[in-house]
């Protein structure tokens, strides 16, 4: 009985970490490519560190990239929805609706930044009886020429990076500002998770082997808050992809008569030295 009692808190901690640590994974092998290529993207709503549970996705309302061409002052919107494919992503013995996309080289081949935005329809989280909508940015770069990574896109909510998200060293520091309707959000709740299981684009599953082992379930995500100016700083202690989610910061707070957590998500990649 003593053993069972001691197990209960662990189970509760694990369950609560699953409930709050959702991440819309929008992944391609490298954020920065030296020469343009077809970008193979996996879009999966899951728990990034634990590699699951993976959630069923609904429609993707917007999927596009904002490009600033060399020598240009304004951004150009590149629609990407036509490249989406709905897939069944393996999650244990079951599958969940997710998406992949192969963005042809010709679509994003010019030197510079491409701020890719994925805006999914709200997901109903029965466990918490709320909807979650994670408006997610991944900033890709071709050739190493920075053109717009530090610009805001006017999203309902977004994380404005203060470091290039695609050119970080392992053990470096990453900073950003959480914005809602274009305004900084003071003391916003942020969760940071390491993408611990690599997405397998070909086989529609996450790799079986984890990159890291968390000392306790509480270490699966790092919690912090923005400061009074809406800014935050995080460390990047491991090579790979790091997800940053600002929770419930968006201006829309209700969906279908229930609470909506409209989150801003930004992915960051750190590389180790060769």
């Amino acid at each position, binding site marked *: 009985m003593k053993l069972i009692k001691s197990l209960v808190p662990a189970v509760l901690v694990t369950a609560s970490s699953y409930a709050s640590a959702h991440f819309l994974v929008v992944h391609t092998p490298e954020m920065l490519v030296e020469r*343009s290529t077809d970008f193979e993207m996996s879009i999966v709503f899951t728990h990034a560190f634990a590699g699951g549970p993976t959630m069923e996705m609904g429609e993707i309302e917007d999927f596009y990239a904002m490009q600033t061409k060399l020598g240009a002052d304004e951004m150009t919107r590149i629609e990407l929805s036509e490249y989406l494919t709905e897939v069944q992503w393996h999650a244990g013995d079951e599958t969940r609706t997710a998406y992949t996309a192969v963005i042809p080289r010709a679509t994003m081949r010019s030197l510079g930044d491409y701020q890719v935005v994925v805006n999914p329809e709200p997901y109903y989280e029965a466990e918490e009886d709320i909807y979650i909508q994670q408006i997610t940015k991944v900033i890709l770069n071709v050739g190493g*020429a920075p053109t717009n990574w530090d610009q805001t896109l006017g999203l309902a909510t977004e994380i404005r990076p203060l470091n290039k998200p695609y050119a970080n060293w392992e053990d470096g520091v990453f900073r950003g500002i959480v914005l809602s309707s274009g305004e900084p959000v003071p003391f916003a709740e942020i969760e940071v998770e390491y993408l611990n299981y690599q997405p397998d684009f070909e086989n529609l599953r996450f790799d079986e082997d984890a990159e890291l082992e968390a000392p306790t379930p509480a270490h699966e995500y790092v919690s912090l808050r923005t400061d009074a100016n809406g800014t935050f700083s995080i460390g990047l202690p491991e090579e790979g992809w790091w997800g940053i989610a600002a929770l419930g910061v968006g201006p829309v707070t209700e969906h279908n008569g229930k609470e909506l957590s409209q989150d801003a998500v930004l992915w960051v990649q750190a590389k180790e030295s060769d």
Partner: protein
Amino acid sequence: MRFVFTIAALLLSMPILAHSPLFDCYDNGDGTATCEGAFSDGSAAVGVGIRIELASGRILMQGEMDDASSYSFEMPDEEYSVYFEAGEGHEIVLFGDDIY
């Protein structure tokens, strides 16, 4: 006077030397290729020289990057290279076979 001139030349060259040149070309699929150049701080390479040179050493074309920091040309049938002339020690060469 010569000292002052040397300092001025060094200062003038610093903004470019401090940032690496970046360059790539792609095949447009219609017999032409487009090249783009920039610097690692994101600045465009407008006006930077570019030349297309055959394997024999003969210069086939010579020009400058336009306002969009690009340069388009008809791809020759024979072996060639593209040179992005971003300053002494900063020239980038791309072989025609690597343009796709």
